[in-house]
């Protein structure tokens, strides 16, 4: 199998997985901010 073909398929999934990680870190950040907001409200 040509090297560039392997690189292309791996690069495609690296880009998609990288983006999925960015989105999931966005959810974590959102949850953290919500917790902070709630604790500020309770005070």
């Amino acid at each position, binding site marked *: 199998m*040509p090297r*560039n073909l392997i690189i*292309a*398929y791996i690069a*495609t999934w690296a*880009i*998609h997985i990288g983006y999925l990680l960015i*989105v999931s870190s966005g959810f974590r950040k959102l949850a953290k901010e*919500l917790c902070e*907001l709630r604790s500020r409200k309770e005070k």
Partner: protein
Amino acid sequence: MKPVFIIYALFTLVLLSYGLNQALVVAPTEQTMGEIQRIFYYHVPSAWVAFLCFFANFGASIWYLATKCEKSDAVAVATAEVGVVFNTVVLVTGPLWAKPVWGIWWTWDARLTSTFIMWLIYISYLLLRKFSTANEQTPKLAAALAIFGFVDVPIVYMSIRWWRTQHPSPVIGGGENSGLDPHMLHALLWNFAAFAAYGLLVVWRRYQLERGRQQLNILYRTQGAA
């Protein structure tokens, strides 16, 4: 995560696995280019999904300007981001195919240049959304940019029909001399279905994130006012 989302994610995974098998194992080897042609099964569906995302972004932006509905703004953000991801895949896989086939990584022909400009337009859209300080005006400005920016999308699509380019002619809907081996077409369409399903899955997730952010901003505003 809702069960329907998990079921849909599993369905997408099955489609992607089937598409990968079609692309690397089942589809026949192209006679002139050889094995490297198999990049086509990821490159072309990615371009089609990017077009669909930018079209959805265009529709959502018009809808946002007409109604000021925050849900349509969230759709616009999600589709622009996912479109840029797929456009990036196109810009990475294209040169990896071009080098062994053309002998060069890149050339400034109409298709390649207009695709690169399309990527830059939507990157600028995302940068505007991220760094604009005109908070309440940002969705409006972004929607206007999306509507004007979309002009490039049909140019990208038509570029290989309007001009003689280094980029290959269209294999589907390209006139009398175009066409594809039925087994190759089968592999191409399955990969398109798989990547379209995957694109929808990611847009769905990104939309949920954007809705969460919008609701958080409302909470901040109400707390600030109180």
